[in-house]
């Protein structure tokens, strides 16, 4: 009953409830780790005040909601009991109940007032002074409804509705008449301006004018905004603006434009001459114009960088130092004769022998200046089994095939047959011995792809019987009878969208539509923990390369960092303006990359919780991320069917790989980073020359400083091969330790 109630309450008062866990999370984090969230002083104070002063009212509010629900369902006894317990006066329920049903936004009126001053002061802030990366969105995640009211009230000042078209076309004429070099830059203004003017019209109930305005000018907008325009077009009434997330993003975050000083002056002069206050106000209030000195950018340059929901990343947002280097490999003695001695050797005989000319061997000698210190974040101690695995890894590494344009990898394709369109996620273990699939029917299936079958530990009763002193006790605890090639893990109650093996192959993570992330033991094949907190579908999850930590992100736009032994998140990374669609750990475990439907990629510092990079340029939700093995570069794939390459150190886009014709769902660098493999919905695996892509780049100081990238279109030269599968979308790729490429997907006949 309790569970059912909970669900129903959600239905009644979902917006408020939705925000609860995140606040709780904040509270706990405050206690444990100090401030985690990347918040500006302004918004952190708001969250803080919310916590301290509004804590009690909010609890009460929840109670009221529960009471109301109970009453609605004629559970008068429960109402009585609960009220007595909570010590609420009888009339408060009626009063508040009426209030909430009337206002629709719940009984949050109190907190609205409480927040009002704070939030409006945020809005009235001058554009250039705002520097925080993620202030507004944090608020958005913090509390929804009150915020909307406050933010929308910014629209109450209205000009003459019919004049909007005149204003807009006036500006359009002006921008079309300016010099070519400025035109491209100034054209950036069109889209945000269009959106805000349209919303202003809608907000002030000028429906027909809004429609006319939309019809007249929506065609002028860049095609990569089509998705947002579609959302916008469906919105024609003031009531719709409530609770529309896309809209909220437009309001709460300022659209960032990068414009050269000259162009900006031109625009400013024009608007002031014309006394065009309407437009000027919008620019002042809702746009953040990042002014730089120097040559205006070309149309191509602008187009590569734009496309995200909230404009480009600010320049200073990508200035923070990122320690992208790799951690020093722990010193592990490699046995000289690798055949038989390995078991006894790792105890201590100092037989030092590094694999010859191995990349990681040389790296571990000297400290990389770009690497974070070894103890920057606490990492788990290596266990004996891990060391053994490391040794295996190094041995395999010596047998690794060196790939290159003339030496392409072989690809082994694992097709899931009879999946009935239900395969949603795949992962391989690092040593390629296991493959796991997440399915739409809520199951997780684990296959062994080696002859070794999957065995569980025996039941407790059976374990009692075995001889604990025997040498092969580890063998004996395994149940041979139930050994099979496939184990099915039941536990989720919705499609499993993300799946990730732990590096030691003892655990498996899965994230699902049901809002939970589950940790499964691969020893017992049972669920160990269900990590709750997202409450909305969790789109992706990924284990840290060092184990212990993992990251998850989903529809609630917050990425959470967890440790396997904590049931609450250690860090919450908020800042994305839409669903987080993919998550990935940096090879040094100090950073986390998240891709989102807001068409940006953010890089977060695990230590401080800050967003240290914002990459814009994709024109669709990002579904695939991959770090290069040296940690310097990031590749990303999106529904716009392109793969983009990023330089993490400089915070720049350095390449664009065109060729796929549908969403890119998987990306992977070869073990030495020479080849980038991409798999897509278009049933192809493509191989790209990563070495060439990275070597060709000349990052001069100017580019680094201004962030103006100019990419040459060399996708065709970089493409090394295209391999078509038979109507099997490629949803996962993996390089084995010897650089054999494994691909996986479900065959759709």
């Amino acid at each position: 009953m309790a569970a059912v109630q909970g669900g129903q309450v959600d239905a009644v008062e979902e917006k408020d409830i939705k925000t609860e866990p995140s606040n709780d999370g904040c509270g706990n984090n405050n206690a444990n780790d100090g401030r985690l969230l990347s918040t500006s002083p302004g918004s952190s104070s708001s969250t803080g005040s919310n916590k301290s002063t509004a804590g009690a009212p909010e609890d009460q509010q929840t109670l009221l909601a529960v009471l109301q629900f109970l009453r609605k369902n004629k559970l008068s006894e429960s109402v009585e009991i609960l009220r007595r317990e909570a010590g609420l006066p009888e009339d408060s329920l009626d009063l508040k109940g009426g209030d909430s049903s009337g206002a629709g936004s719940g009984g949050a009126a109190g907190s609205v007032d409480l927040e009002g001053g704070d939030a409006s002061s945020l809005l009235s802030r001058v554009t250039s002074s705002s520097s925080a990366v993620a202030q507004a969105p944090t608020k958005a995640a913090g509390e929804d409804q009150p915020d909307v009211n406050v933010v929308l009230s910014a629209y109450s000042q209205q000009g003459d509705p019919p004049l909007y078209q005149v204003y807009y076309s006036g500006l359009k004429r002006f921008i079309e008449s300016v010099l070519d070099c400025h035109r491209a830059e100034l054209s950036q203004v069109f889209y945000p301006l269009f959106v805000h003017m349209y919303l202003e019209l809608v907000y002030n109930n000028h429906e027909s004018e809004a429609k006319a305005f939309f019809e007249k000018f929506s065609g002028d907008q860049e095609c990569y905004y089509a998705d947002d325009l579609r959302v916008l077009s469906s919105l024609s009434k003031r009531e719709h603006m409530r609770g529309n997330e896309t809209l909220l993003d437009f309001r709460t975050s300022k659209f960032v434009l990068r414009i050269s000083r000259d162009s900006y002056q031109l625009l400013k002069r024009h608007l002031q001459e014309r006394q065009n206050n309407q437009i000027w106000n919008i620019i002042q209030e809702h746009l953040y114009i990042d002014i730089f000195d120097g040559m205006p950018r070309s149309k191509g340059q602008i187009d590569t960088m734009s496309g995200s929901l909230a404009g480009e990343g600010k320049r200073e947002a990508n200035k923070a130092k990122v320690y992208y280097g790799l951690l020093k490999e722990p010193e592990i003695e490699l046995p000289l004769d690798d055949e038989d001695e390995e078991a006894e050797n790792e105890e201590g005989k100092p037989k030092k022998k590094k694999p010859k000319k191995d990349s990681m061997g040389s790296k571990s000698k000297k400290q990389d200046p770009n690497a974070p210190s070894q103890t920057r974040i606490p990492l788990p101690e290596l266990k004996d089994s891990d060391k053994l695995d490391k040794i295996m890894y190094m041995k395999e590494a010596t047998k690794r095939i060196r790939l290159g344009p003339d030496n392409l990898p072989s690809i082994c394709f694992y097709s899931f047959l009879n999946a009935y369109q239900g395969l949603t996620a795949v992962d391989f273990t690092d040593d390629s011995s296991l493959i796991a699939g997440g399915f739409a029917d809520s199951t997780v299936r684990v296959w062994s792809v080696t002859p070794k079958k999957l065995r569980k530990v025996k039941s407790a009763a059976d374990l009692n019987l075995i001889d604990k002193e025997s040498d092969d006790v580890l063998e004996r605890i395994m149940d041979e009878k139930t050994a099979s090639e496939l184990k099915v893990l039941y536990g989720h109650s919705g499609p499993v969208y993300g799946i990730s093996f732990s590096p030691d192959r003892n655990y498996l993570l899965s994230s699902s539509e049901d809002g939970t992330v589950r940790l499964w033991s691969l020893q017992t094949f049972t669920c160990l923990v269900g990590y709750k907190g997202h409450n909305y579908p969790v789109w992706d999850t990924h284990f840290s390369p060092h184990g212990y930590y993992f990251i998850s992100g989903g529809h609630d736009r917050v990425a959470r960092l967890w440790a396997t032994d904590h049931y609450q998140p250690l860090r919450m990374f908020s800042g994305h303006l839409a669903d987080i669609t993919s998550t990935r750990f940096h090879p040094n475990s100090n950073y986390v990359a998240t891709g989102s439907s807001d068409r940006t990629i953010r890089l977060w510092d695990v230590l401080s919780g800050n967003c240290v990079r914002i990459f814009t340029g994709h024109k669709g939700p990002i579904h695939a991320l991959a770090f290069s093995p040296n940690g310097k570069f990031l590749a990303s794939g999106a529904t716009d069917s392109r793969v983009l390459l990023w330089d993490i150190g400089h915070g720049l886009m350095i390449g664009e790989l065109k060729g796929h014709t549908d969403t890119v769902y998987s990306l992977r660098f070869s073990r030495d980073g020479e080849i980038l493999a991409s798999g897509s919905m278009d049933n192809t695996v493509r191989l790209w020359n990563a070495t060439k892509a990275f070597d060709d780049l000349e990052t001069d100081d100017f580019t680094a400083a201004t962030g103006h990238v100019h990419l040459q279109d060399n996708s065709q030269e970089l493409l090394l091969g295209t391999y078509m599968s038979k109507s099997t979308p490629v949803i996962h790729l993996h390089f084995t330790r010897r650089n054999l490429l494994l691909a996986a997907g479900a065959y759709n006949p």
Partner: protein
Amino acid sequence: MAEERRPKQCSVSLPTESMKAIAESVGVGQLQEESCAALSEEVSYRIKEIAQDALKFMHHGKRRKLTTNDIDNALKLKNVEPLYGFQSQEFIPFRFASGGGRELHFYEEKEVDLSDIINTPLPRVPLDVSLKAHWLSIEGVQPSIPENPPPAPKEQQKVESTEPLKVIKPGQEEEGTIQGKGQGATAADGKGKEKGLIRLKPRSTHELSVEQQLYYKEITEACVGSCEAKRAEALQSIATDPGLYQMLPRFSTFISEGVRVNVVQNNLALLIYLMRMVKALMDNPTLYLEKYLHELIPAVVTCIVSKQLCLRPDVDNHWALRDFAARLMAQSCKTFSTTTNNIQSRITKTFTKSWLDDKTQWTTRYGCIAGLAELGPDVIKTLILPRLTIEGVRIKTVMEGPVVSNIDKIGADHVQSLLLKHCASVIAKIRPQPDSVEQYRTDYGYLGPMLCSHVMKARTQAALQAQQVNRTTLTITQPRPTLTVSQSGLSGSLGQRTPSIIKVPSSLTLMSPRPGTPSQPSPPATKYIVMTTSAGASSTQQVITLSSSQTASPVTSTVPSATSTLQPLVKLEPGSGPGLTGSRPLQKYIVVSLPSSATSSLEAKSSVLPTSISSNPLEAVMKLDRSESPGASTQSPH
């Protein structure tokens, strides 16, 4: 493109009529126009919102199709109770209805009887998910195995051969994964060329890997070797393997050279083997032969019209080879003839020219006629029928005149039966009843009387097919299947010549007014064996629906499916007397069901030509099912 879409985006919202209809469906009778308008806006907005959320689920589910589950999940996201019970794997069969000025799309929900569900046996459990590994690429080269798509898809081969200049466009070139390693280089070349406006066809490698060379050797040896089992296997491989694209030029040369040599040596067996290879290549769904027709067509035509194909023309059955090759020719005409290459008209011209030549040998004459006849009834009608009289004279001189040579006589005999076979069905179609021997004689000369009887046979057989009793299986034996049924409609008279398993229910009225004597004497067909056809390609499926429509006249015709080169076997025309013609050898006729009503008219439809839709939902389907086409046996009337 986006611009085109956008104006629509703005205006799409549900019509107020929908609101009314929905309101009515839940019992709200009178809904104010204003409420409707307000509701429709709100509902449209919400629906769009949910659809947009559902798209997210589709993307994360790695699918291209939105499913009802996605919608459910999107509703859950909004904390709305999902719509239970709308599970649909594929598509939702919405139906359209209009009336009273309203148009509706609705989902037809039938009332389901629970006991029916309980009593029906459980469906088979769907197969469990399983994992299968294969090599997508080996060191950069994609192996040609069934798990991989054919290296060059048929469409691309077609594009390449018909529009060679398009191929170098980068977008398309990427499809061709054959080059593997060299891809990057060629792609770059292609781009450079485009820039320089010089269009050259990219060099394509024609080197075969060692495996391919071995395969080629094995296959060609097996195809012309002595072991029939091996040959069958090899031909099967040619007809199905997806990776033969690169070997096509070799096969093509092999065949054309082979024919050239063996025609000279009069090696009939080898010629037959080679033609079977051509057939197998044509059957391979992944190959597009257009580029190799210049080699293949001469070879095939040689096998049709060559003066001598075997060492002993009087004994050996080279006629079969000519028939087979003619069918191949017709098939390739059908597949590859375009307005640019004009294969069909060129071939027709060639055949006609040598046929018209007086000095042409009987063998060649036979080949020409067979080649023309296979091209279809239209060709028969326009080219062969007008010459029947002349040909009749020629045959007569050989048959009845002084014996010149045995070979000529055999040749004339074959030409005669060939003409009868092909012309009868066409004449049956175009000539009104009744068939009078005299009339035929005046129209067609020497061949007239024989034609007349053949035509009548054709008519009878078609009628007969329409009346098969339930589940009657009848196979007509070779050669020249002759099955005659009297037209009286009395079952008694049928008994004489027809096998006893064929019964015409007396309740059925047959249309022919003519007396029920079998008009054509035929070799007694005493043995009826169910056999499979040897001609590999027959994919004719004939569905004859007997429907008790108002029209009394039976309409029965069978139509070959589009891919088949074979002539329709039985053709009956409305108003014409039922005749029974010999049909192609070895067919299995299965009558699926029969009308119970007394007045049944026969209506025939081809399964592939949706020409008419029966007004009467139920009746009978008769299927002529070459046992090779397995699909046919499960087909339903519509």
